[in-house]
């Protein structure tokens, strides 16, 4: 299984590196939205709560532009059938899961500094802020991996991925916004929200792993 995962990951990274389609779309979207918000705000800083909300809206929609690509591409290019027959189903899930986590990490690494720079965000608790953004990103990537597989099977139709992901991810966004807002201005933020995000990620990852074979394999 380990070798299958590594081979699959290598292939996914190579294909993505060759076209950089998903990454370019997500990063460009993040940059355009962040600059648009900063421009329309006219340099006036938002309150910490609003800053946290807007940050997570930008992260969410940037991620939605790219996270489903890993499965939609396999179906579009007709390689899904080869993967299904040649590679163990659990290895496929683990490799796609790791790829999405890496993809999300890149999105966060692009979006967050841009956002802090253009919207003049003052972070009071830097470590808590970094952990909040990272934990939220891990949760989003964890929950969307299986949803991406479902959307790919449904033909990857337009905004379907966002429609089915948004309600499942709402608790993650809700808690991430609270945690990020606390990192920006609370006197002493607690780790309860981070714990919730990690628990949610673990829970949904396990269920996704168990359900993946029913989504991926065909009758």
């Amino acid at each position, binding site marked *: 299984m380990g070798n299958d995962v590594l081979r699959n990951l290598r292939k996914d990274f190579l294909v993505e590196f060759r076209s950089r389609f998903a990454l370019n779309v997500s990063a460009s979207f993040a940059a355009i939205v962040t600059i648009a918000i900063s421009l329309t705000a006219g340099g006036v800083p938002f309150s910490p709560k609003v800053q946290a909300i807007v940050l997570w809206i930008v992260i969410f929609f940037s991620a939605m532009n790219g996270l489903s690509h890993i499965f939609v591409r396999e179906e579009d290019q007709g390689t899904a059938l080869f993967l299904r027959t040649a590679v163990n189903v659990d290895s496929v899930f683990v490799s796609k899961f790791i790829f999405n986590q890496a993809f999300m990490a890149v999105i966060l690494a692009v979006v967050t500094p841009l956002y802090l720079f253009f919207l003049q965000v003052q972070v009071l608790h830097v470590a808590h802020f970094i952990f909040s953004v990272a934990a939220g990103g891990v949760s989003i990537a964890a929950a969307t991996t*299986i*949803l991406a597989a*479902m959307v790919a*099977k*449904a*033909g990857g*139709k337009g905004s*379907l991925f966002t*429609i*089915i992901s*948004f*309600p*499942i991810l*709402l*608790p993650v966004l*809700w808690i991430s916004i609270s945690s990020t807002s606390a990192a920006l201005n609370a006197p002493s933020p607690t780790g309860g929200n981070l714990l919730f995000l990690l628990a*949610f990620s673990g*829970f*949904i990852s396990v*269920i*996704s792993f168990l*359900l993946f074979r*029913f*989504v991926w394999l*065909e*009758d």
Partner: protein
Amino acid sequence: MKIISAAVKSVYILMPAAIVMAFLWAPPAQVLGDSSRIMYFHVPIAWVSILAFVVAGIVSILFLADRKGSFVMFDGIAYNSAVAGLVFTVLTVITGSIWARISWGVFWNWDPRETSIVIILLIYIAYFSIQGAMAHNDNRGRIGSAYLILAMITLPFFAFLVPRIYPSLHPDPIINADRTIFLDDRMRSTLAVAIASFTALYCYILHIMNRMMKLQNHIEETSHEAD
């Protein structure tokens, strides 16, 4: 089978009994007065909406775990239960907002419980989006069932966790003057009968929907054979 049929048909006795008890027998609550009678409809409807989604999730597990082809109709049953759940969730939102208007002066204020029920509504609307997108896809049942299981495991976060983490104005603290839930024996028994009657109503609706689905499948098979 006769037991199930009798349980389903108990709605004919339970529902009128619940209505009479709610309006004529149960006393009004101390603070909310007669408007508290909406509780005998709102609480059972909310309970049934969660029950319907849990049933949809459990039936989906059986459908996916079935290797012998014994439960081939179960994805349809899960779909029907989700439809019933969605209707009851909309009714929960409507009755809840009427109660909120009476108690708080506004129909909607994003109270944690209101937020939770709307998120649950969105989750199941998304399920119907997937089903619609896969209308002629052979994997529709498997993917729909996988989504229903995923949706079911998020229910505890919304139905139980969120309302307890965030401060809420929901009637737990305001239904009585001492700011605790206190229902006297008549209120309790009315609520119990109302919950039983709405559960029977859900079973009745699901039973009819399943029978319609079987008939529809039978008609389709017969017309294929005739061709």
